Every structure is written in structure tokens, then in C-alpha cells.
């Protein structure tokens, strides 16, 4: 059975490597360094889930979320960010995010959220 594909959009190498450590055994991971790159990948890829940072160069995470939801309305998106504000979380959920995980996260937090949304 093929592994579910997860698209990870984060500009930080350390974070991308962290996701690799946590998820690579059970999932197939694709990486984007910024919003435009992620949107480009989505044109030819149908991932089961997307992990998205908020503060990134070129495009704000919430703007990326809007575009993703336009292109793939059913794709679950988890926001993973260092900006821990209630307003930001509410805004993200309003725009259709499936979950909101603040950094620094625990690996089991990520594993649990990802497992639930890729069932």
C-alpha cells in the first residue's frame, strides 16, 4: 500500500528536517520552501495533507491557505507556526485550516494530527 503523501511548506531547513525525522517513516514527504513553490507543486500533486507555516518569504501563510483552498478545497491543511495568537488561529480555521499547531511542537502532537487527517 503506498504511503500517504504530505506536502510540507516551510522556509526553515531545521523545521523541514524535523518533519522528516517525525514523518518520513510512515509518509511520503514533499517539500516547498515558500508559497508560490507549494502552489506550483499542487498543480501536479494530490497530497493527502499539507503542513503549512505562516511567516514565510514571498507569500503569507494565510494567503497560501486561501489559494490552496481555492485549488484543492478538500485538501486538509494543518497550520504549524511560531505565531501563537488566538486571532491568527481563528483566522486560519475560518479560512478552512483543519488544525493549528503552535511551535515548538512535540512529535506525538504532529503524528496524532497527521494520522487523524490522513485516515
Amino acid at each position, binding site marked *: 500500500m503506498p504511503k500517504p503523501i504530505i506536502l510540507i511548506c516551510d522556509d526553515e531547513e531545521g523545521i523541514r528536517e524535523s518533519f522528516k525525522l517525525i514523518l518520513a517513516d510512515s509518509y511520503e514527504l514533499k517539500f516547498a520552501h515558500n508559497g508560490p513553490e507549494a502552489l506550483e507543486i499542487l498543480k501536479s500533486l494530490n497530497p493527502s495533507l499539507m503542513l503549512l507555516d505562516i511567516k514565510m518569504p514571498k507569500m503569507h501563510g494565510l494567503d497560501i491557505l486561501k489559494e490552496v483552498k481555492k485549488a484543492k478545497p478538500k485538501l486538509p491543511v494543518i497550520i504549524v507556526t511560531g*505565531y501563537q495568537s488566538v486571532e491568527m488561529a481563528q483566522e486560519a480555521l475560518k479560512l478552512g485550516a483543519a488544525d493549528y499547531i503552535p511551535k515548538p511542537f512535540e512529535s506525538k502532537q504532529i503524528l496524532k494530527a497527521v494520522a487523524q487527517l490522513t485516515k
Partner: protein
Amino acid sequence: MSIPLFSVFSLISGLINLGLGIFVLIKNYKNRLNQVYFAFCVSSTLWMIPIGLLSSKLFDDKITLFLAKIVFTGVAFMPPTFLDFVINLLRLPKSDKANVVLRLSYLCALFSLVFLWGSEKIISGHHSYSWGYYPKAGILHPINSIQIIATALYGDFLMFSQLNHIKKTEGKSRRYYEVKLIFFGLIFISLSASDFLQNYGASFFPLGPFFVTTFLIFMFYAIFKHEVLGISIVLKRSLVYSILLSIITVIYFAIVYLIGNGIGDMTKAQSLPVVLFILAIITLLFKPIERKLQRQIDKILFVKPIDVLSSENELLKQEVQKSDQMKAVATLAAGMAHEIKNPLTSIRTFAEYLPKKYDDPEFRDKFSKIVTDEVDRVNNIVKQLLEFSKPREVELKPESLRGVLDETLELLNNNLLKNKVELKKDYRATPIIRADKTQLKQAFLNIFLNSIQAMPGGGQLTVLVDEDKVKNKTLISIQDTGYGIAPEDLPHIFDPFFSKKEQGTGLGLSIVHGIVEKHGGKIVVESKLKQGAKFIISLPGIP
């Protein structure tokens, strides 16, 4: 049975006085000043209401003596509460000798109560005057009267000397007007000590209640106009104007009525032109008088003196600055949290997987690289933050601007070459400026690096220096041909932690802004997306 007008006046005035005291207390009951003002109002009401009842001559000797003793109870506590109010209003320190006088004054009031209610040595009965009954002085009354008058005069003296002190130190500030108004009001309260004369048989009318009423007017005015005692009442102009209009209308109707009576004997044919003439005059005068009265009301109630307005403006300015600082701190904290949480996440995850993957050499290599990089990054953020939050003072010395720029650009030679950035220097002036060379070099370096990073595919960096001889300013313009700044980002470009770059803390331009300001200069940025950016710095020339 008829109640004399004086009685009614004293009673109403006493009740209004008590009402104002309660109102002041309710508005800010935790404030000591409001509390002592309330105590003062209670004391003066204890004096005024029984005085009103006594002058009605409605009661027998026993009740009259009881009322007379209540009058003196109020009188005994007026000086200490008065002095307490003055001390609190003037914010005198606890160590001030006025507090010793205050304690003595309270003690005297308590002693006099013992003699007042335990004997007839202070109030021995009552005098019967044409306008009403009045308490009769006992044998100890003169001592008490002297003490009371001395305390009141001491309070007035304190107010007067402090008023001059405030004028000298703060100018005609809001506090000056506040103290001045209350000072005038309290002078009237002190004048009411003249009512002691009736205790000794002087038969003229007691003026105390009128003095207290005058004091009340001063207090009302001080509260409405200058928000004294921390009370702010919003009087709506429209309401005041409506009341005014009603009063004018009533007056006009009264005039019309009186004139109507005056011409009542005339025939219809005779009276009509007279009535029309009078109405025309009234109509013509109505508006100008109304406007004039409105202007006067504006002046009395709504327009504040220029000194007060300027000090209030200054306060507002400080509040805005404080709020800006708080916003900057909030931005700083949010940015800092984000910048640090990312490396923390990586370090945490790698540490978590260390026991499980320790034998994997690839993991160990990554661990070493990622953790070292992230720790360096946190260290760099902290260093920059310290630089940002506690920048050292500038040491301004005459420096050649050209020298500062060239030395900075030399540091970037390799960087310019590597990024295919062509440097164009356009030094139209070579001024000597007062600068902290190290800090100014840091500022230029930050801008140059920013510009180079904005041109990943190469471009041109133009450094222009010019002078504005009229304004004695030096202008430095640093222009690149990079991807520019989005219009919505322009207002935030100097905010701490604001960054759109893949790498960078967002503190670089904030530091530049701080350094330029410390040199007495200004920095602005002009940019359009995909059309490059231009930073213009103006620095003051040497006078």
C-alpha cells in the same frame, strides 16, 4: 407658620453641599482627597442645616440647645477636614509640618466635643435675634473660635504659598487653575468665621451660608471646567444651549407680557403698531443676544486656557508615544517569539530522536549541523536584540562622510562582485559631519546588504551624496534595482522583526533607523514593487 427665607436658603444650601460631597465621594471613593472633601462637606452640612432650623424659631429651648450643639459639632470639625483637604490637594508629604498642625486640629475638635456635649462651657444657650435663634457662646467658646480661625488661616496660607510655587515650577498648568479655583472658594469658607460674632450678641445677619454657597459655586465650576478631584463631567453644549434658549424665550415672553399690560389701555388700532414694533425689535435682537450668550458660555464652560490646553496636549503626546512604544515592544515580542520558536522546534525534535537514532551516522551529521546552526541563530537573534534594545550611546565626532561610505563599501567588494552588483558612486558633495563612525558604518552596511540581497540576479547600487545648504543638511541616497518593497510593507519596513527575506531577523533596518535618529537625522524609503528601493538619509550638517 412661616419659615424665613434665610432658613430655607441655609437648608437648601446645606443639602446641595452634602449632595456635592456624596457625589465627589461616589466618583472616586478610594481617593483620599475625595474622602476628606466628603468629610468636609458633612461637617459644613452639620453646621448649615441646624442653623437653618434654628433661625426658623420653631423649636423649644431644649431642642434649640440640641441643634445649637450640632451646629458647633459641625463647626469644630470644619477646620481639620478643611486642612486635611488642603494638605491632600497640595500633595504635601507626610513629613510636612502641616500634618502636625492637622493632627493637633483634629485633637482640638475632639476635645471641644467633650466640653460641648458634656457641659455648657462652649454653647450655653441661644440668642434670639429678629432673623432667628443663634447659638450662644459659653466660657470656652473664645478659645475654640481662635483655634478654628487660626487653622482656617493656616490652610489659606498653605494654599497661597503653594499656588505661587506651582506657578513658578509648572507655569499656568491645569493644576495651577485647579488649586487657584479651590483657593478662592476656600477663602469664602474662611470668611464664614465672621459668623462667630453672632455667638457673642452681634445681631446682624449671619453671612456664613452665603459664603458656603459661593464656595459651592467655585467647586461646581472647578469640577465642570477643570475636572478637579478626578471628576470628569461631560456637559453637552446642545443641552446648555437649549437651557439658555429656554431662559431667553421665557425672558422675552415676560417682556412681551409686561409690555402687553403697559399698552392694555390703548385701542386696538393704537396698540397694533406698537406690538409689531416691539416684536420686530425682539426678533432682531434675539439671535445676536443668543450668539453672544453662547460665546460667553463657551468661554466659561467649554474653552480651556491655552496653558491648560498645551499641557493637556503634551500629556496626550506622551500617552501616544507610550502607546507606540508598547506597540513596538509587542511587535518585538511577537517577532522574537517566532524567530526563537523555529530553532527551538528543530533542536527539540532532534533531541527527542537522539536516543532512537543515535547509531545512524546520517542522523548524527544532521543533528550536529542543525543544532549548531540553530543555536548560532538564537545567539545571533539575542545579540541583535540586545543591540536593538540597549544600543550604546553615540560618540559624535567630525568625520568625512565620504570616508565612512568608502570604508563600508570596501568591506562589500567581494559581495558586490559575487552578486554581480555594479556600484555607482555619485558624490556631489563631500561634507564633514558629526558622526559615530562605527555606528554609522553599521547603518550603511545594513542598508547595502539589504540592497544586495534585493538583487539576487545582479543589478546596480547607486550611492549619492548631496548637500542642502539652505537647511544645512547632508543627504545620502542609496538606491538599488532590486525587487522593491510592496506598498503594504513600506510602513513596516523599520519595525523590529519585520522581514520578508528568506534569511534575516528583521532587525537590520530597525537598527539603521535607531542609529540615524541618534545622529539627529531622518531616514525614509521610496519603493515600488519590481522597481527597486531608495533609502534617503538626511543628517544634520555641522553648524
